């Protein structure tokens, strides 16, 4: 799975620009499963199992990542931008980014600390003060390589470190994509549907049409979810913990999860020796938000990897949690298919 994660994080794909991710996923499943691409760009995959399923089960993972989009080129050759998805300026000030089709290198400019009053030293710049510096010295020079509407993504590599940890940009949710692809590549008991969705980060747009198109009875959303198991954060505010396995929440800001499915996940975990943990805060949201209320309604569960520093250039996960997510998702899938 590490190889798949590395591969999928190797390309950019901010919301609305998921093409490169989709092509990579297709290259992995070509010949193994049937697929189609819907109007929004969702990749819908049908994988035949050993037998037909009693219920239609959809596994979803989103292809897009948070980033930025170029909105203006200033006379001095610097670029103004909007964020795409929820990105906190505190994790991108002074960071390297890549811009547009030419993958031009740039940096988010920082007013030198020497020029701040002592009382301002921790103040973050206002959104309209932020800019990308590609080294151009004029508007014309910048225009020769950048267009308005160009996508911007963090210039941050995949790094394995410590005791089985992985750092990278876009782990949210290329990890989910990698888990889904590894499921497609495995021999499934029952026929299953997979949706690699677009535009999750700007409001679960793709999942809405993907779920409507597939019209499943059950859905499993494969995700990363925020973990705050770091110094200075105590008790319930830590939400979940890296290394403690798959995260299955009862409620987040988008979805109240099916109570029976929630309990089933923990039971399956216990019976099969898979670590499963809950979330100790009602926080975040994912494609389940759109899927559970699609059509006549879908019984939905989200199975996530705990992820530190979510939506930053340096997301951190533990690989062992990925294996828990994969195993639990497979077991849940079988249960749902045969329920």
């Amino acid at each position, binding site marked *: 799975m590490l190889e798949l994660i590395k591969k999928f994080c190797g390309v950019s794909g901010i919301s609305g620009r998921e093409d490169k991710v989709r092509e990579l996923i297709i290259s992995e499943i070509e010949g193994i499963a049937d697929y189609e691409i819907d109007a929004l760009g969702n990749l819908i995959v049908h994988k035949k199992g050993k037998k037909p399923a009693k219920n239609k089960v959809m596994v979803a993972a989103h292809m897009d990542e948070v980033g930025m989009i170029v909105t203006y080129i200033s006379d001095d050759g610097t670029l103004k931008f909007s964020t795409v998805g929820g990105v906190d300026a505190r994790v991108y000030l002074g960071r390297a980014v890549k811009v547009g089709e030419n993958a031009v290198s740039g*940096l988010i*400019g920082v007013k030198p600390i020497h020029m701040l009053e002592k009382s301002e030293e921790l103040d*973050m710049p206002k959104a309209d003060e932020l800019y990308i510096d590609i*080294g151009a010295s004029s508007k014309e020079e910048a225009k020769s390589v950048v267009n308005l509407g160009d996508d911007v993504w963090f210039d941050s590599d995949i*790094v394995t470190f*410590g005791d089985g940890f992985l750092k990278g940009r876009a782990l949210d949710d290329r990890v989910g994509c990698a888990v889904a692809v590894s499921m497609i590549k495995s021999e499934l008991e029952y026929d299953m549907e997979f949706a690699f969705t677009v535009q999750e980060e700007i409001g679960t747009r793709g999942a809405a049409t993907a779920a409507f198109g597939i019209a499943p009875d059950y859905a499993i959303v494969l995700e990363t979810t925020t973990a705050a198991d*770091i110094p*200075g954060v105590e008790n319930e505010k830590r939400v979940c913990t890296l290394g403690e396995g798959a995260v299955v929440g009862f409620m987040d800001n988008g979805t109240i999860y099916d109570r029976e499915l929630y309990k089933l996940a923990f039971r399956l975990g216990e019976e099969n020796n898979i670590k499963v943990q809950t979330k100790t805060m009602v926080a975040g949201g994912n494609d389940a938000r759109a899927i559970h209320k699609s059509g006549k309604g879908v019984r939905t569960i989200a199975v996530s990897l705990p992820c530190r520093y979510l939506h930053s250039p340096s997301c*951190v996960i533990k690989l062992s949690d990925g294996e828990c997510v994969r195993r639990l998702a497979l077991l849940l899938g079988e249960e749902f298919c045969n329920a």
Partner: protein
Amino acid sequence: MLENKNALRDMIFELACADGTPGDEIQAVEKAAEMLEKYMPVRIDILGSVYGELQGDGPHIMLDAHIDRIGMIVTSVEDSGFIKFAKCGGTDARVLAAAEVTVWGSEPIYGVITSTPPHLSKGDESKKAKEFADLAIDTGMSGEALKKLVSPGDRVTVNTKTLELMGDRISCAALDDRAGVAAVLRCLEMLEGKNHGCKLSVLFSVQEETGGSGASAGGFSIAPDEAIAVDVSFAMAPGLKPEKCGVLGKGALIGYSPSLDYKISRDLERIANEKKIDYQYEVMGGKTGTNADEIQIAGKGVKMGLLSIPLRNMHTGAEIIDLNDVEAVAALMAEYVMERGRSDA
């Protein structure tokens, strides 16, 4: 103007990628000493600064650039496997959340600085960066394993890539002041085979970012007649005041300040005009905030000049310079040394 862009760029990146926070500059010192040895005999002083010296009958001129870079210092290793740290030099806390770092323990250790997840940032909290005391380094290791490799006092630097931007601009951490070190080395290259007759000393000084101790001791030991310090200064960028900044790519910043020798400043400006070297002014009302302040009052005193390379995003991993400015500083220093040698002969 730029004779050999790739060679200059590569030299700067090689210097900038060497570790070397204040008080622990050994890696950068060794790299710079190796490069300096091509031009003159080299030694390392008590504080760790690099000295180079070429004999000559003319005036004794010293060229200085600081070899240290800003960073962080480990204050404790937690049982949870996280590292607490303080700044070492003027590191900007606003750019640290979720930054990648190297912890220079008994072996280099990769880490990520913690950041507050969005769900815990209520209201205005995202408008303020965390203080150093509220940040930690995530190494993905157990406290037990980590304590065998890291101890308080070990240094930490931010990992950045070496980036080529448009035109002749480049970016990476520690261009402050490895770009200055490179300018001095490039100047020596330009002077090679030229018979200027000056006694020429070079000082790559330690601990500038924590107050200039290396410049103090170096200025005293070398005791030149005059010296030029090379540092970086603010380059104009969106949101900054033009009167406080140079401009990237517009040449060497010639310092004028009460603490700098007025004649040296004027000579540098005249020579730049004569030799058609791009320059700009950096005028300050008091001290310069560079090694020039320390060297000036070292021993019985040194006549000081200051040349600066304009730089954006100072004291972050996103420092940007224009190679033409480094070349201009080098060329101006070289012409200055040539003229001083000749005029004194």
